[in-house]
């Protein structure tokens, strides 16, 4: 099924010749490391002692009873260091970059979560670090920019294109082209040219292996459904991979339904999108009839992306993963229910997966089991949430905070 990074007709390595030697070097080093027991041992060690793995699988008892259908379990990836699953592939890639003798890490970031995780591993493993972030995203996600800078990273605003994630990817790739000798590009999802989709999936697949063990302990069987939100697809591939061969486990990906069906109002690649070749890989993209990438929208910056991992496109084509979507409003509703019933504040990305579980559970038997990948926690969304929920007191707090500061100057 997989040949030079192809997943059926998807994937590949569509890059200018000047990037090919670097990608070949990365591919070779990665597959060597993959087989090296010492490397794997080191990776597991840091996941356990630094990132906080294994993350717990939590039975959402109150939510299950409230919905009155299938049992819902939450894989709480939000308990990882930096608050999301991203740290896992960042540790993997940082260890690999070290092996390759690189001294600098660069990355793109949308919401700032991947940038934060990259800045974290750069600090931990001794790399200098540059993060590219769209100007629009910098405005939306100032707290993460601040944190990245505290971790010693340089955050560079990207002022071209839509000034969001895809433009940050372009900027990072250009930096990599110019600094390939010293620099590893720590790509943040299961997208981009080979070997990134495969490598990131492999690192993340620890999530699915943990779930398999944990759910068997809890219920004595495999889950009937696994639900994950899908931006690029790293958390989804992380939890799905171990179960692809288990034909009785239904896998569901949830895309961002945004605020409407019109172009630019959502990020549903498997509805409005078509096959294209962008950012070095072939997959589904939201693009016009000339192949120009279109604007996307989601309340969650992590799902606000025009492309989707090539392996997910392949699994969708084969009918192995089903795709659905949740709107901004549904995600906010799911956020609220989960916070109130389970005492867990999910990231807005993960809230999309919760929204699907809320729709699905009541239609299922009580003996059915759903696992939801709670890819991150919601602390990072504080400002967006306060605004979306119309919390005047939070806005008053911000105003008085600024006023106090000005008076004290």
């Amino acid at each position, binding site marked *: 099924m997989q040949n030079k990074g192809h997943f059926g007709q998807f994937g590949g390595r569509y890059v200018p010749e*000047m990037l090919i*030697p670097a990608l070949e070097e990365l591919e070779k080093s990665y597959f060597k490391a993959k087989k090296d027991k010492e490397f794997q041992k080191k990776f597991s060690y840091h996941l356990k002692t630094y990132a906080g793995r294994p993350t717990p699988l939590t039975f959402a008892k109150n939510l299950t009873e409230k919905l009155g259908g299938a049992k819902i379990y939450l894989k709480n990836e939000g308990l990882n260091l930096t608050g999301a699953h991203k740290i896992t592939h960042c540790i993997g890639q940082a260890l690999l970059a070290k092996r390759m003798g690189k001294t600098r890490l660069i990355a793109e970031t949308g919401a700032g979560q991947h940038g934060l995780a990259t800045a974290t591993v750069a600090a931990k493993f001794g790399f200098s670090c540059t993060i590219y972030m769209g100007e629009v995203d910098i405005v939306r996600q100032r707290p993460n920019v601040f944190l990245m800078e505290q971790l010693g990273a340089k955050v560079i605003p990207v002022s071209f294109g839509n000034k969001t994630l895809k433009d940050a990817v*372009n900027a990072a790739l250009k930096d990599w082209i110019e600094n390939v000798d010293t620099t590893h590009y720590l790509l943040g999802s299961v997208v981009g040219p080979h070997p990134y989709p495969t490598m990131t999936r492999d690192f993340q697949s620890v999530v699915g292996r943990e779930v398999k063990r944990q759910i068997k302990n809890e219920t004595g069987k495999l889950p009937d459904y696994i639900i994950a939100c899908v931006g690029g697809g790293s958390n989804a591939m992380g939890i799905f991979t171990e179960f692809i061969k288990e034909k009785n486990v239904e896998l569901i990906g949830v895309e961002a339904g945004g605020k409407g069906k019109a172009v630019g109002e959502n990020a549903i690649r498997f509805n409005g999108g078509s096959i294209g070749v962008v950012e070095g890989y072939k997959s589904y993209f939201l693009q016009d009839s000339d192949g120009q990438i279109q604007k996307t929208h989601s309340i969650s910056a992590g799902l606000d992306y025009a492309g989707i991992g090539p392996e997910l496109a392949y699994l969708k084509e084969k009918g192995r993963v089903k795709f659905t979507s949740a709107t901004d409003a549904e995600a906010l509703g799911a956020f609220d229910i989960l916070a109130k019933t389970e005492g867990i504040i999910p990231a807005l990305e993960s809230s999309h997966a919760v929204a699907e579980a809320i729709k699905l559970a009541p239609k299922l038997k009580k003996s059915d089991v759903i696992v939801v990948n709670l890819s991150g926690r919601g602390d990072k969304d504080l400002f967006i949430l306060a605004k979306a929920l119309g919390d005047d007191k939070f806005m008053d707090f911000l105003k008085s905070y600024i006023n106090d500061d000005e008076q004290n100057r």
Partner: protein
Amino acid sequence: MNKIDKRLQKTKKEKRLGLMTHVVVGYPSLAKTFDIVKIMEKNGVDFVELQIPFSDPLADGTTIMKACESALKNGTKVKDAFDVVEKLSGEVKIPLLFMAYYNTVFKYGTEKFCKGASAVGIAGLIVPDMPIEEEQCEHFDKYCRKYNLKNIKVLSPSSTDERLEKNEKVASGFVYFTARQGITGAKDTLDPKIQIYLKKVKKYFSIPVAVGFGISKREHMRALQQHADIAVVGSAIIEVINKSKDQDIEKNVRSFIKNLKMVN
């Protein structure tokens, strides 16, 4: 005979460095694209590469990227590129090439794109993100050959011997070598190692060599004269356009090219 081969015979006979210049279709407008290409020919340019604007131009620096953005904002469509070339073909004799990112070709339909390009008078395609490894899925080279288009391969200082060897097997017309490891954009000085790189390239390629990326001055042209067959000037011309008032674009492009050509 393909127009590119013919023109290369001419520059060789005249024992001079050929000049390929670059325009972004629809920048600053379609009408200007048409006029600028005509001026280029009139002032001794040997080849013109017309870049079809794309939303995510991976190998381009700020200058060309912003020109693409502006062309798209003006409403430039892929079809406009074909139309403008069709119109130009009746008026200019020098070979015209399309530079495009692969998504533009793929989305149009790879065979349809090659067939259409050939029909309007395009002589070659430069598609930097269509590497030889993907040929099996895309049949890009196959359709280039079928429709008598030169498949111009772009190589760089980071290209290993293995990559040079592999690309030599498909490259046709000339090979485009980037003067530095990086993205497009005018620079003050050329990489001093360029001559060493070019020697390596010539070891593998018997077809002529074009050098681009960072070429903006007469001195650069002079430095390349003994080592390359074609100099490619892209961003520098767009910068001339950027700095010109609308009515001065033609005049300024003309004097810029004349100045470059004084090397011969």
